[in-house]
């Protein structure tokens, strides 16, 4: 068997807004690595017209971008093939959550980065906390913006290092006012929306807590007997110790299911619990809802949750029996939508499950999209 090259190391510069200095700090490190004689290239760099940042690329080798066309407009994007051919030791990949031009081999830049890592290339990259999948609903609540370009949590967990690029909101607002971040017209617009002090403070808090969490889960690795700073490929028993908790997420066609999955997975990650998801396919149910269920199950799988479809007449009974058989300790459900609370016309799914599952914890997940009650 041929020896595979060891996987590259991933380092993420995490920020909470444009302009905190993620790219700048990443390039500083790239320059430092080059000074140490390492083979560093820039695979992708987004200048945003920021002079100080552009100056930090001086003397670094660029791998030319790939030109592509979409709906009559030319775009250029990271040329993953060319980087693989050049095979540097370290590659700088700006804007990790970026979506590729439709028609590219992968939809997302983070997937391209996986190829580089698989080939043994170290990757330095940047992202904002808003783009972490499991925080999507909280971010929506804070900013009112639904972020579409997300990074699954497991991708961040695989990073060897997550560094917080910290700048206080006040300093960031000063930068914005001085025109360092955006040109003046765009800056005014930004100040009205995203760049409100309270929003920035809340996002910064999320980023600090997430970084602390990332630091903490890596400590478990440090402690494990066969300590390695690079995570293994997953087939060696180096997993952090699992807790006794087992979390089951009930998937339904309801649109709030995505939020439920994100929340259940986040809690499972923090508790080091096993996490899986099931849906119950009722025999006489229409095709439309099956499509939604399938989408939700796939979404769960993309987040590395084991997901499966069960058959049965009665959703509540089927899921509770399944939970009992599999030693589930926590069952996660979505809140029924407002119309489903008519008590006289029988019980809704949540009420049924709560009554059946008296021997385990049942968690009814908040609707974090909804406006707060008065």
């Amino acid at each position, binding site marked *: 068997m041929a020896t595979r090259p060891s996987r590259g190391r991933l380092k993420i510069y995490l920020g909470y807004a444009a302009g905190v200095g993620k790219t700048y700090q990443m390039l500083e490190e790239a320059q430092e690595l080059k000074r140490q004689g390492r083979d560093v290239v820039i695979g992708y760099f987004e200048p945003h017209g920021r002079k100080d940042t552009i100056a930090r690329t001086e003397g670094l080798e660029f791998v030319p971008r790939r030109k592509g066309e979409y709906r009559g407009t030319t775009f250029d994007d990271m040329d993953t093939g060319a980087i693989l051919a050049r095979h540097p030791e370290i590659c700088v990949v700006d804007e990790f959550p970026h979506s590729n031009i439709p028609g590219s081999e992968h939809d997302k830049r983070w997937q391209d980065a996986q190829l580089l890592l698989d080939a043994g290339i170290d990757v330095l990259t940047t992202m904002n906390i808003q783009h972490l999948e499991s925080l999507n609903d909280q971010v929506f*609540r804070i900013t009112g913006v639904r972020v579409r370009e997300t990074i699954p949590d497991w991708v961040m967990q695989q990073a060897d290092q997550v560094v917080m690029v910290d700048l206080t909101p*006040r300093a960031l607002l000063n930068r914005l006012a001085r025109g360092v971040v955006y040109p003046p017209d765009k800056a005014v617009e930004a100040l009205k929306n995203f760049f409100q002090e309270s929003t920035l403070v809340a996002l910064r808090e999320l980023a600090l807590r997430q970084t602390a969490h990332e630091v903490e889960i890596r400590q478990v690795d440090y402690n494990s007997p066969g300590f390695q700073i690079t995570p293994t490929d997953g087939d060696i028993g180096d997993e952090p110790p699992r807790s006794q908790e087992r979390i089951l997420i009930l998937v339904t066609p309801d649109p709030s299911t995505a939020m439920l999955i994100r929340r259940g997975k986040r809690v499972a990650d923090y508790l080091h619990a096993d996490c899986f998801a099931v849906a119950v396919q009722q025999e006489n149910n229409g095709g439309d809802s099956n499509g939604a269920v399938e989408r939700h199950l796939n979404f769960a799988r993309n987040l590395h949750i084991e997901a499966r479809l069960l058959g049965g007449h009665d959703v509540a009974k089927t899921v509770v029996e399944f939970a009992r058989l599999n030693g589930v300790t926590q069952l996660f459900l979505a809140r029924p939508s407002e119309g489903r609370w008519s008590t006289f016309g029988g019980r809704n799914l949540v009420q049924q499950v709560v009554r059946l599952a008296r021997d385990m914890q049942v968690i009814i997940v*908040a609707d974090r999209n909804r406006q707060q009650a008065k």
Partner: protein
Amino acid sequence: MQTSTKRRTPEELLEQVQAEEAYEKRGRLKVFLGYASGVGKSFRMLDEGRRRAERGQDVVVGAVQPQRASEIEALLSKLRVIPLRPIDGNTVMDVDAILKRHPGVCLVDGLAYDNPPGSRNASRWEDVEQLLDAGISVITSVNIQYIDELRERVAKITGKVVTQTVPRKFLNSADEIVVVDAPPEMCIRTQDAEMKARATTQAQKLSELREIALLFAADVVDLQLEQYLQRNGMTQTFGAQERIMICVTPRANAAAMIASGRRNADRFHGDLTVAYVRQPEISADDQAALDRNLAIARDAKAHIEILDGDDPIQTILSFAREHGVTQVFVGHSTHEHWWERLTGTPLDRLIRDANDIDVRVFPH
């Protein structure tokens, strides 16, 4: 996102205006927080001073550490320095000279430094307080090992006990706090087994210290957010920090709920409250059971809240909303009255009305 303005009493408004005035007059405090020596907090502090001076602000250096790296010397040469004042072979920051000079911004390193006897104040952080009161803004740096409330935890990791400290309260009052987050080196690539073992222990220690610093900063930021929202008359919850509220009754399986609540709160580095809604006419047995449950809560270091209200569900939810609770823990209903088959149990009502809060129902 929702913002609403609370109607306030004239006293509250007056208090707010006074608080705003005091806030306006006081200098701003900015703190660079480090978790190990050599992460570069003094450099960051002086570099910010240099940039501000270049932008035309009136910046002076009030105090720097005696041993300096060459890059620090280079920065210092670009800044105006007010020399330390000698006292009996020791030195102290010259507060009088700074007050007289009255700069816009003063840079102060070594915040936890104990002043020699005969100085104006016992500690340097109290000197800083005086500068702030005089309307001078201060940029300073401190290592987490000197924060009084963290001292023991940090000493357990580093094995070093420090005697000079800064109280957490002072850092909570900072307008801005920045973590200087330089992580333990990316690559420990040495082959020597002994060196590797040592590097590993070192990396482990640094990473524990780093986590403490990040969480400390997050807590200060959380407090700042609360104060900012209050100053601006906004009631808003962002749920950036997990806050768990456990609702206990005399009959509740409180031990299991509190153990789970504690574990969840610790894992998320969140906040834990145990609440009881006072019920009229409670039997002696129930009172004893309730006292036992509250004792468990105290042992778990939860905040304890005894709430009053006619409608327990409403009482729980309004407390939860006011305090930005993200998860409410309750017990399963023990039994269901026949009429509740029609109207729903109180638990049904709690789940229905909780909206933006998770509800976790526990077995008995």
